[in-house]
């Protein structure tokens, strides 16, 4: 007599995604959906989809969602949380959205200590527009707008947003995780759950979970190699672990 021990969470639609094979967004969506189900907060959670590959996140997460302008998710989240303080408000953002065009919005949401959660999916590249350099692209990493690899003298160093935000008094929980192997995926979920639980408990402060996530397509790697690349290379620039809280 076998029993079902794992299936897709209720807060995730049973739907084909537009993501490339091996993309980390699918796993990140699932972890959020599982967290929402397990905390039983579907009726009072609002998600914010960014511009970037996850622009259509509202097609996959079976919850109330809003799609917003590029980089502005933390400002939208601010407006929402202020009028709906009993709701769990999370912004789902990529690296271009959060660290480049939306740098002011993320810094100030953290600075004000908005009681929101940001799920920051960092794959060090612009996926949707075709593999251009991101603010988090690593030194030496090739992208379509730095074809010889990122040169810090010309393009600057990758922005370490978790470290930058963690020094702000308004930010109370910041952790960097990775979607690589089952153990790290479990840790990622635990971090998301902790962040949402903080909102649920009415704890003050800005929460962010940064997720190092593979982009096999624009890293020009197989999905399996892309995961190894996170473990072996990406974590050197973006070390895993809790930075605050």
């Amino acid at each position, binding site marked *: 007599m076998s029993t079902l021990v794992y299936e897709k969470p209720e807060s995730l639609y049973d739907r084909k995604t537009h993501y490339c094979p091996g993309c980390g967004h699918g796993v990140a969506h*699932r972890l959020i959906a599982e967290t929402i189900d397990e905390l039983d907060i579907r009726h009072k959670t609002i998600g914010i989809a960014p511009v970037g590959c996850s622009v259509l996140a509202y097609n996959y997460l079976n919850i109330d969602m809003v799609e917003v302008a590029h980089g502005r998710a933390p400002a939208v989240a601010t407006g929402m949380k202020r009028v709906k303080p009993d709701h769990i408000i999370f912004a789902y953002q990529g690296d271009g959205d959060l660290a480049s065009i939306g740098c002011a919005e993320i810094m100030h949401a953290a600075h004000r200590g908005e009681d929101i959660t940001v799920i920051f999916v960092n794959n060090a590249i612009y996926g949707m527009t075709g593999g251009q350099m991101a603010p988090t692209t690593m030194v030496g990493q090739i992208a379509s707008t730095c074809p010889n690899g990122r040169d810090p003298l010309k393009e600057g160093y990758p922005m370490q947003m978790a470290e930058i935000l963690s020094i702000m008094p308004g930010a109370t929980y910041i952790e960097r995780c990775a979607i690589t192997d089952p153990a790290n995926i479990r840790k990622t979920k635990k971090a998301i759950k902790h962040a949402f639980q903080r909102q649920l408990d009415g704890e003050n402060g800005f929460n962010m979970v940064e997720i190092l996530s593979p982009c096999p397509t624009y890293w020009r790697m197989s999905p*399996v190699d892309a*995961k190894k690349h996170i473990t072996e290379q990406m974590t050197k620039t973006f070390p895993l672990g809790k930075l605050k809280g």
Partner: protein
Amino acid sequence: MAGKIEINTDRCKGCYLCIEACPKNCIIIGQETNASGYFPAVFEYEDKCIGCSMCAMVCPEVIIKVYRD
């Protein structure tokens, strides 16, 4: 402990992360393409499965159901 998985192969995109994650090597690459043109992951060695859910944990498409006895 015996387990069983069901892969919705129609929706598989052939990333094979599940194959890499499976500690018992129960999953293989299928021989025929699915509707999207991918060679899907296929649950082949059913007797070896322990229902550990590692495959489901890494699957980006969330198309694996896991059963355990």
